[in-house]
């Protein structure tokens, strides 16, 4: 069984949404892999060897060949293991899926992070505004049960941050962005996503996550 997949290793950190994305994709496709938890304050030699450019996780290593950047890794997984496809076949639909997942990483996540974890109130408010605009684009884009249609796709996996990490941030810092009044479809999607059998097994413990975010918020607001 392992021969089909070759040797697959994943380097990540438990609380990070990016490594979880890769785990969800591998597990959806039934790919056997070995997971290595990294200590980011003490990066392993292997990590530095496999990702010399960014020195970050997650890194996937397949038969000794390393890859970094979670969205790149997700596409590679889809190209390599054809069952349970997470990207559409049609070029235009693929382009849209790539567009929205990049949007999530380049616009959504940074805005949400800044809305929560900035000392300056004006910056926080501006970022909250940006976050709401970004969430509205996603709300408008959601036309089925998932972004991928009836099954989870690339965009859903990328948006996992919004389904699970965002509510934890909201609880930790007292912020409200993803309200079900403003974003009924996205709110419902978040519940469907986190209840998906593969996703459910691949989320970090919520209380630890909230604790982590509380500590982060405290250190930022204390250093004013």
């Amino acid at each position, binding site marked *: 069984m392992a021969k089909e997949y070759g040797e697959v290793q994943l380097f990540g950190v438990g609380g990070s949404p990016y490594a979880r994305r890769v785990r969800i994709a591998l597990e959806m496709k039934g790919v056997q892999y070995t997971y290595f938890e990294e200590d980011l304050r003490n990066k392993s030699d292997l990590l530095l060897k496999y990702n010399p450019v960014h020195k970050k996780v997650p890194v996937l290593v397949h038969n000794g060949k390393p890859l970094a950047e979670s969205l790149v890794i997700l*596409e590679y997984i889809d190209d390599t293991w054809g069952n349970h496809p997470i990207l559409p076949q049609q070029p235009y639909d693929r382009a849209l899926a790539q567009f929205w997942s990049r949007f999530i990483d380049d616009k959504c996540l940074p805005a949400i992070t800044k809305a929560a974890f900035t000392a300056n109130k004006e910056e926080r408010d501006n970022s909250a505004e940006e976050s709401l605009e970004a969430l509205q684009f996603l709300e408008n884009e959601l036309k089925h049960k998932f972004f991928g249609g009836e099954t989870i796709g690339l965009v859903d996996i990328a948006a996992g941050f919004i389904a699970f990490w965002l509510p934890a941030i909201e609880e930790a810092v007292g912020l409200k962005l993803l309200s079900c009044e403003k974003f009924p479809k996205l709110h419902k999607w978040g519940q469907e996503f986190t209840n998906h059998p593969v996703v459910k097994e691949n989320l970090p413990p919520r209380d630890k996550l909230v604790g982590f975010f509380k500590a982060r918020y405290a250190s930022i607001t204390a250093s004013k």
Partner: protein
Amino acid sequence: MGSQNVKLLSFLLSPIGHRVEWALKLKGVDYEYIEEDIFNKSNLLLKLNPVHKKVPVLVHNQKPIAESLIILEYIDQTWKQYPLLSQHPYQRALARFWGTVADKIAKTSWVAMCCSGDEQENNVKEAREVMDKIEEEIKGKKFFGGDNIGYLDLAFGWIPYWLPVWEEVGSMQIVDPLRHSAISAWITNFLTHPVIKDSLPPRDKMLVYSHRRKAEFSSTPRG
């Protein structure tokens, strides 16, 4: 086949827009070019790219696609001649990874041009470190794509022609011909390629534009 209804909304001086033009030209795809005044954005742009409001936008059979690297992949899948990406999954993934690096470092180099003092020094240092890695990637190859120009050559296409302008405007150096001899050789290969050399914007206009953006950057309060 598909070439009857291809439009490209772009900006003459944009290195990112040029990636798309080069791809279409390499594949011999006919297209209608629409110039956008980025200082006075048109309703067309806002309609075609409401999310980012930026060029380039490719419109094929009335369907718009934004983000240059995504457009390159779309072009490659739609018009099969002159392939830009390898068929091999790992090589494709490597190209996509380095594409994200190309975007990041283009931004870092641009910001380095716009700022000064310590901030400039930090950005230049970061860009130089990545250039050292890019040097390793191109060693022994004519192009990143091998014998022919590929996706990654287009992604890095700002280095041969735009970066020297930014270096001049910012009084800085990011590519060092001695340290980056393989990149320098690639630069010559790229700029002398028949499709590329006839598809470059006027340098004097690039200088004026870059000076203007640098001045705006300094005068805009940043938090």
